C-alpha cells in the first residue's frame, strides 16, 4: 500500500513538474520567420477609426439651451425669397428660452475588423418660451409663434451606419436616417424624412483618414443634395488633430491629456419640422404640410473629459447663427428639391436672431 501511495504521488509530481516546465520555458524561436498555417497572408482591413480622436459615443444624453433672441415671422402665404412685407403683416416675439433634452444612441450590431454595422436612435426636444407675441389679424404668422410656444418642436428617429473596408486602406461608409420632426406630442408624426450619406475613402495610416461622397440632407433646413468630405487626422505627437465631415461639422482637436480634450469648430444642424395642427387647418384641401425649414450654424468650443471608465462629460459653448427658419407648404406632404438656386416660393419668410448657446452631455463611449 505504501508503494502504491508512493507511485501515485510520483506520477502526480512528475505531471505537475512537466506542466510547470512547459509554462516557464523560454524559446529561441524567430517569430519573424513564421507563416500562416493555412497559407497566404492575413487579411488586413482599414480600421474605422484613427488614433487619438475624440471617443466615439455609444449613448449620450444632454441638455441644450440658447440665450434669448427676437423672432419675426411673415404671414402664411406664398412668397418669393426677396419679398417685402408691410408694417403690421409681420408677427414678432421674443424667445426667452429655447432648449431641451437630447438623446442619441449608436449601438453596434456587428463590429468586426471587416464590417461595422451600427443602429441608432435620436430624440431631440426643443421647447420655447416666447414672450411679447405681437401681430394683428393680417399677421397670420402669429399662429406659428403660438404653436411653437405651446408645443415646441422635436425630432425622433432611427439611423444606421455601415462601415465596410475592402482592404488595408480603402473603405466605404454609408449612413442613413429616418426622422419624424415637428410639433407632435405622444403620437407619431405623419411625415418621415430620410437622410442618406455615402462615402468612399482611404485610411493611409493610423493617423489619417479621408473620404468623399454625396449626401441627401436636411442640415440646411430644406432637403438638399450636398457633396461631403470626411477628414480625420492626428499629429504624430497626438496632441493635435482634425475631425471633420464637411460641411456638416468640423473641429480642430487639442488633446490636453489622456483624459481630456478641447475641440474648436462648428456644426450645421437642421431639420424640416411639420406643424401638425396648422397644417390640418390651413391645408385640408390638398392634405398639405406646413414645415419650418430650420437650419443653423453653430461655431463652438467643446471640452470633453473622462468622468470614470467609459463615461465622458462634454461641455459645449458657442453661438447659434440662423441659416434658415423659413417655412414651406408641401402638398400631400411630398418633399421637393429647391437646392441653393431653386425659385420655388416659400409659405413663410421668417427670421430669428442669433444667440449664444450651451450644451452639456454625458456620454457612454466606445472602447
Amino acid at each position, binding site marked *: *500500500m505504501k*508503494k*502504491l501511495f508512493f*507511485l*501515485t504521488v510520483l*506520477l502526480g509530481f512528475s505531471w505537475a513538474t512537466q*506542466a510547470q516546465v*512547459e*509554462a516557464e520555458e523560454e524559446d529561441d*524561436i524567430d*517569430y*519573424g*520567420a*513564421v*507563416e*500562416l*498555417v*493555412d497559407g497566404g*497572408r*492575413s*487579411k*488586413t*482591413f482599414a*480600421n474605422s477609426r484613427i*488614433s487619438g480622436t475624440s471617443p466615439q459615443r*455609444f449613448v449620450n444624453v444632454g441638455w441644450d439651451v440658447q440665450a434669448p433672441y427676437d423672432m419675426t415671422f411673415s404671414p402664411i402665404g406664398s412668397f418669393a425669397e426677396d419679398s417685402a412685407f408691410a408694417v403690421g403683416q409681420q408677427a414678432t416675439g421674443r424667445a426667452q428660452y429655447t432648449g431641451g433634452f437630447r438623446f442619441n444612441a449608436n*449601438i*453596434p450590431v456587428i*463590429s*468586426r*475588423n*471587416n464590417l*461595422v454595422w451600427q443602429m441608432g436612435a435620436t430624440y431631440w426636444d426643443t421647447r420655447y418660451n416666447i414672450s411679447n407675441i405681437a401681430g394683428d389679424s393680417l399677421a397670420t404668422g402669429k399662429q406659428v409663434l403660438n404653436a411653437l410656444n405651446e408645443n415646441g418642436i422635436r425630432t425622433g428617429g432611427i439611423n444606421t451606419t455601415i462601415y465596410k473596408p475592402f482592404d488595408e486602406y480603402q473603405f466605404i461608409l454609408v449612413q442613413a436616417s429616418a426622422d419624424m420632426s415637428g410639433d407632435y406630442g405622444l403620437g407619431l408624426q405623419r411625415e418621415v424624412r430620410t437622410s442618406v450619406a455615402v462615402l468612399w475613402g482611404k485610411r493611409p495610416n493610423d493617423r489619417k483618414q479621408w473620404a468623399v461622397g454625396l449626401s441627401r440632407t436636411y442640415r440646411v433646413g430644406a432637403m438638399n443634395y450636398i457633396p461631403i468630405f470626411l477628414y480625420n487626422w492626428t499629429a*504624430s505627437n497626438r496632441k493635435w488633430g482634425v475631425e471633420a465631415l464637411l460641411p456638416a461639422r468640423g473641429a480642430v482637436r487639442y488633446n490636453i491629456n*489622456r483624459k481630456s480634450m478641447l475641440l474648436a469648430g462648428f456644426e450645421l444642424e437642421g431639420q424640416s419640422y411639420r406643424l401638425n395642427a396648422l397644417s390640418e387647418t390651413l391645408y385640408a384641401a390638398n392634405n398639405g404640410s406646413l414645415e419650418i425649414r430650420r437650419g443653423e450654424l453653430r461655431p463652438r468650443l467643446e471640452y470633453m473629459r473622462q468622468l470614470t*471608465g*467609459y463615461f465622458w462629460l462634454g461641455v459645449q459653448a458657442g453661438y447659434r447663427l440662423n441659416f434658415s427658419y423659413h417655412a414651406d407648404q408641401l402638398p400631400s406632404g411630398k418633399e421637393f428639391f429647391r437646392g441653393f438656386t431653386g425659385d420655388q416660393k416659400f409659405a413663410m419668410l421668417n427670421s430669428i436672431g442669433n444667440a449664444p448657446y450651451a450644451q452639456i452631455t454625458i456620454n*457612454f463611449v*466606445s*472602447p
Partner: protein
Amino acid sequence: MKKSLILLLALTFALFIQTDSLQSQDAEADLMVGVWEPSHGRARVKIDKIADKYYGKIVWLKEPNDPEKGTPKVDKNNPDESMREVALKGYRILKDFTYSGKREWAEGTIYDPENGNTYSCVVKATDDNTLDIRGYIGVKTFGRTDVWKRLAIKK
C-alpha cells in the same frame, strides 16, 4: 501482495482512461495555445497555458523600435506610469482566460497598447486556425471583434 497488484493495475487502467478523456478535452481547450497574428499584421502573440489559464504575450513587432527615438517600443500609453518604460515585446496582453467549452474561452482580459485600455474579452475558435477575439466593456454588445490567424514556423 496479489490484491495490491490487482488494485494497482485497476487504478492505473482507470487513470489511463481518465487521462485519455482529459487529454481529448485538454486538446480542445489547448487549441488556443500557439502563435497568432491579429488582423492588422503588425504584431504576433504567443498564447500559453499556465496552470489552468491561458495567457498571451507579444513576441514579435513589425516595427520593434520607436520611429522617433530608435529604441525598442515601450508601453507608453499605460495608465500606470510605472509601466510606461516596460518593453512591448514580451508584454502580456491576454490574461486569465479559462476554457468554457464549445471552443470558447472567457473570463479573460485584453490590453490594447494603442490606447492603454484593458477590456473584458472572450475568445472563440471558428476553426482550428482562426480565433475571434472580442474585446468589450460591460456587455458583449459594446465591443469589437478581431480575427486572429494561427502561425507556424516555416519549413
